[in-house]
């Protein structure tokens, strides 16, 4: 039941990323700077921190695969980064206690590295159009997504905490 709700949330976010948010971004931000909505990634990072990284790995794989199928030129690029980033995020947390600040920092770094991996993957197959790598153009994306994560932190964590015992430490 709870997993069904989670799946519905993820599907809704997935639809929103392509439709409502695109219109909203075009209206409000325009082309002043680039902002990519990565709300799905944020939720999967939360899942990996609160429900275990293996589950998050597979959820991310499916989520990324759908992005690749619907929008992408290459199948596998987003599936890879969406699966690996949440896994690594949780791996780094074996030695820390979870609190708001640390979770938000994780989201920031996670989204930022996700964009860099995304660039690398597409550059590998020559899909970036000769655009050179610019580390600063992902900062707005990372910041705004962290901001969104701060907003949804409270409801999402309380929901995830009801789903399972907190942070089952899986065997390495």
């Amino acid at each position: 039941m709870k997993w069904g709700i989670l799946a519905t949330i993820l599907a809704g976010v997935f639809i929103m990323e392509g439709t409502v948010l695109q219109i909203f971004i075009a209206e409000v931000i325009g082309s002043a700077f680039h902002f990519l909505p990565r709300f799905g990634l944020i939720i999967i990072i939360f899942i990996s921190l609160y429900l275990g990284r293996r589950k998050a790995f597979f959820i991310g794989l499916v989520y990324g695969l759908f992005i690749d199928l619907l929008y992408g030129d290459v199948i596998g690029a987003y599936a890879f980064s969406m699966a690996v980033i949440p896994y690594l995020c949780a791996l780094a947390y074996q030695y820390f206690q979870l609190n708001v600040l640390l979770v938000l920092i994780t989201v920031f770094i996670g989204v930022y590295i996700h964009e860099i991996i995304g660039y690398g993957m597409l550059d590998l197959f020559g899909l970036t159009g000769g655009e050179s790598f610019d580390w600063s153009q992902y900062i707005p994306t990372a910041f705004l997504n962290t901001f969104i994560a701060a907003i949804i932190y409270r409801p999402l964590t309380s929901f995830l905490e009801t789903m399972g015992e907190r942070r089952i430490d899986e065997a390495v």
Partner: protein
Amino acid sequence: MSNFFLKRRLLALLVSLILLVIIMGITVNDRPYPSWPERFIRDSFSLVQGVVYKPAYAVAGFFENIKHMYSAFEENKGLKQKMEEYTQMSADLQELKIENEQLRDMLDAKESKLSDYKVRAAEVIARSPERWNHTVIIDRGEKDGIEPNMAVITPKGYIGRVQSVSNYSSQVELVTDIERGNHIGAIIQGKEHIFGVVEGYDPKNNLLIMRKIPMQSEVSPGQLVITSGLGGTVPKGLVMGEIVAVRMDDQFLTKDAFIKPNADLQKIEKVFVVERSFVPPTEIPVPKPTEEGGTGS
């Protein structure tokens, strides 16, 4: 035992990585007709996306209307002035058309087939939330007669081409995603036509780049660029944009022109898919082997 487990895990990791690279390698090419699982997923998502996108666009449009109300008065004055010019222009155009027809009749020259096309209306239902894949999904597919590589326009001008078609939806690649063999033959309108190919995109300034324009040709900012209709499925005469800057290329042999796209690529709601009446043959003609080989002298 644990040693064996560790080894197997490494193997699994390696195999899955190799599998990933293989899948990416296979799917990296343009696939105008995707496989049926992809079609199924795209079509079923396109249903939901269509339901969500249209109301969202309507709401956004409402807010924009409020914004526009403030500047309506000024705009109205300017438009009225333009309207007067327009009456004169349309009268001139009518005259020229008749004259053109008469001259054609006298010369016995046929209408050029290059600019002949039919359009099909379609609605945008989603945009890719990504940086490099400038992809838009529209709600018409193979069952509605859409074919790969058809040009896609808005009333303001050319915006891209159909990249891949599913049954009830298709993906449109915008002009800004121009780098991979997606070059468009174009004409700079001036005293005489200058032919060239739009083959680059400058993401910083959102400008298209037309390269290899001959040095002696007169190109200046403000000139319009239209599609040339030479080759491919893009008909002649679709507006692409306006030149905003011209510069020498790196070797000082040719010129590069920077083109500002006329259509607003940020906000796309309704588009038209252009079906060209005359598609030039793409195969390279091969000389036929002589049939009576050996019998001749």
